[in-house]
């Protein structure tokens, strides 16, 4: 009886992935305690989010990939409709229209699209598995660019770019020609000035201050200056947990959300940072391993895209905190405070686990 229960609980769970994820999230809670100024309520709130997200992960892991394929286009269409809804009736907060009120809940459709886009594209290429042509890629590109454009318009440049990246990974893994990639790169470079002129002032400012944060030390450069000071002053071993001066004397802004990595780097130093990077690389490696061994085009592309997107999130966040990328609102995956991103992330890992475990079952 107990055996059956254990089997029921664990048969679709990837033990290795769960272990590394748990370790990372645990580390996240430790840092969060310091980043919130020892606010246990916040930490417990995050624990609740993690438990909810883990449950969703478990449920998704138990869902066979074939079933997921059925959700692909309805999810995508629903997401698209919601994005249009946001554009028309969305709620403005901090100068951006990102939220939509549905009855009692307030949802952010762009979060849904983080999963829906790779799901849709993977499904599309699965259907075109035999004999992919350039036109197929063109259709896929349109399916990708429509939601990206809608999100960029909100404006939420960070999320738009990351969703674009997740879609691009599907295209890339599906075998889009190198020449196409090259010509697209050239085209992008040519269109960059156009894109620049279409950007909002604050978006332009963020990119400008990236190159010289000291130009606006009290304005948009302040975040980067303070986070690099936090990291740099952490040194090799860090100032010790709860002893980061930048953190605890309020110099670091957004320190329990987007800039929590600076807290981590300040208090745990380069050794701590190396450890965290190792955890992220282990997760990415495991994800790529699962993708490499997936049996169908759909599962391969989906697993590959989810894994690479996860790596991208980590890279972009650490890059912006350490001052080599512009400040785009991207949380540090599995560590930053916030339930939504936690759920989205673990939902993705649920898909990965489903891909990993159902492959075995199909074989047997």
């Amino acid at each position, binding site marked *: 009886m107990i055996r059956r229960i254990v089997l029921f609980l664990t048969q679709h769970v990837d033990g290795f992935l769960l272990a590394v994820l748990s370790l990372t999230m645990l580390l996240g809670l430790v840092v969060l305690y310091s980043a919130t100024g020892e606010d246990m309520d916040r930490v417990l709130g995050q624990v609740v989010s993690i438990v909810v997200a883990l449950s969703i992960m478990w449920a998704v892991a138990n869902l066979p990939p074939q079933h997921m394929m059925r959700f692909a286009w309805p999810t995508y269409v629903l997401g698209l409709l919601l994005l249009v809804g946001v554009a028309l009736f969305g709620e403005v907060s901090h100068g951006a229209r990102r939220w939509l009120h549905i009855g009692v809940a307030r949802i952010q459709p762009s979060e849904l699209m983080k999963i829906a886009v790779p799901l849709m594209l993977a499904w599309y290429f699965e259907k075109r598995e035999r004999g992919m042509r350039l036109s197929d890629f063109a259709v896929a590109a349109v399916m990708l660019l429509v939601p990206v454009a809608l999100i960029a318009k909100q404006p939420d440049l960070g999320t738009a770019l990351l969703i674009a990246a997740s879609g691009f990974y599907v295209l890339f893994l599906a075998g889009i020609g190198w020449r196409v990639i090259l010509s697209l790169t050239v085209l992008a470079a040519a269109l960059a000035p156009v894109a620049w002129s279409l950007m909002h002032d604050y978006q332009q400012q963020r990119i400008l201050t990236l190159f010289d944060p000291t130009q606006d030390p009290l304005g948009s450069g302040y975040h980067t200056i303070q986070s690099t000071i936090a990291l740099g002053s952490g040194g090799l071993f860090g100032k010790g947990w709860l002893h980061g001066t930048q953190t605890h004397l309020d110099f670091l802004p957004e320190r329990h959300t987007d800039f929590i990595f600076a807290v981590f780097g300040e208090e745990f130093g380069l050794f701590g940072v190396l450890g965290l990077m190792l955890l992220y690389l282990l997760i990415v490696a495991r994800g790529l391993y699962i993708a*490499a061994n997936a049996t169908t085009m759909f599962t391969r592309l989906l697993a590959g895209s989810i894994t690479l997107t996860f790596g991208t999130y980590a890279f972009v966040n650490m890059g912006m905190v350490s001052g080599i990328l512009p400040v785009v609102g991207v949380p540090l995956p599995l560590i930053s405070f916030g339930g939504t991103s936690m759920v989205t992330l673990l939902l993705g890992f649920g898909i990965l686990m489903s891909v990993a475990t159902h492959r075995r079952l199909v074989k047997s």
Partner: protein
Amino acid sequence: MTRGTELRNHQRDLYYFRVRLTVAGSVALSLFLVLLARFIYLQIIQHDHYQTLAEQNRISIVPIAPNRGLILDRNGVALAHNFTAFTLELTPSKLPHLEQTIDQLSTLIEITPKDRKRFKKLMEESHNFESLPIRTRLNDVEIARFAANRYRFPGVEIKARLFRHYPQGEITSHVVGYIGRINDADLERLDASGDLANYRGSDFIGRTGLEQSYEKALHGTAGFEEVETDASGRAVRTLSRTPPVSGDNLTLHLDLKLQQVAEKAFGNFRGALVAIDPKTGGVLAFVSKPGFDTNLFVDGIDSQNWDMLNNSPDKPLVNRAIHGQYPPGSTFKPFMALAGLELKKRAPDYAIYDPGYYSLPGSSHRYRDWKAGGHGYVDLHKSLVVSCDTYYYGLAVELGIDNIFNFISHFGFGKKTGIDIDGESTGVLPSVEWKMKRFKQKWYTGDTVSVGIGQGYDLATPLQLAVATATLADNGTQMRPHLVGQIQDAKTGVITPIPPEAVSTLPVKPENLAMVRSAMIDVMRPGGTAAHAGMGAPYAIAGKTGTAQVVGMKRGEKYVASQVEERHRDHALFIAYAPADDPKIAVAVLVENGGHGGSTAAPIARAVFDYYLLGKLPAGPVTTPAAEAAEHD
């Protein structure tokens, strides 16, 4: 399609997929390596730099201003001290809507238009990030009212500050001087002298008087507090503290009671008095009337009071005792007499006949004696007792200007005395060279005539007269006049007396000095020009009266005091020392437009002597300004 090709296709797809996956994985890995390089750069290579930045973020050095040293009279009575008061202070850089904030504040705490004006002036003179007082001396109710509303006013604070107070007010205004807020010019000066760091926490600096000349000793050494602050600048905790070292206390030679006696003796007259201990050069009293309330200047004087002081015809801001230059008149005669004796141009028993005027040989121009018809036969003794002008006209011409200049300059005329406050005038002891330089003209014998009676080009400050008198009293040894007697180190309590300093010693024959002294004693006795003032003194006074013309009289015109406009009347002068046989105090008195020296200036000196030598207070109560100030408060 066969199943085999399909399988091969599948294998080929998987192969391509894995190639792509490897490419993507490699890109991801290399991006992570880029991050790693960045972290190594930040956390190892640039660690020291960022460490410093983090410390600078976190630690701010807060200077602690030292307590300013006290200024005390010889008996330890405070002439300048400090008191703590609560001030309402604004930091303009933190207040974008300054006017609005002040308006809101004025609903809680009374802020008068005067306060606003003064604050505006302060703002112009200081830096924006400084915290500046808009109201001082808040009472308990006001403090409580603000404390309850504090949250509404970021950038507004109540601070406990030390304030300078001058309890004696006007009486000591020209000795003690005052402090004022440090302005940009001061900062530049402090920067140039390397003292800026020591003044980082200080708001005030000495402007005039002793406050200015002893600034270095009075200021003390600033302390520092290392404070950990958060991003909003709030102090979280103190890391270390170096306490400030208070400024040194100054004890003066000056006797406040004596000063009050002198002040009162002036009545409503303007003028100056300097009393010196001839043996040490210590200044016992230092009066310049009128004075002014130095307390008005401490926190920035308002324009109304400033205009009143600055435009007053009485010129209360001028330190007459050291800055005012007056013809010494007949008070110059004892020095001339000594010169005549020492240079052997006059023997004590040699007498001239005074017909009431003097004419240069071969000239018909008459230099008139003050007494029409003259004094008859006059020897040296009588020349001083009755203050005969004719005697000195002739003597001056016989001595010649060079001899007069060389001898009399030993008494300190024509140069600064070197007293320990700023603002001294040099006065004029004329010489051939001086006239050439000043007027580009050669010296005429006629110029020498009036020099003999302290008129013409002769000019002296009351302090110079006092120093010359003290030199005469001390047998020709000139001591540097000094206000401060000792300096007490506030930290160790060690008292360092300032040793008396002889400037020059003139070898004069004792019998010549005795000759002049006996004549000066008789000035104070019946038949002398100051007989009234010397009447009934139980000690011997050696004195000399003087009168200095303010407006020249036309030939043949008679000077009648009552017919002359008050401010055109003669200045009255008097110099004296006592007791004549063992001088303990030498004094010079100038009464502006006071008329004759014997009747207005000499009684003031007598009052000073009586108090200093006998402890006798003049009739009538001496109201101290301190008592008056207390009533005002």
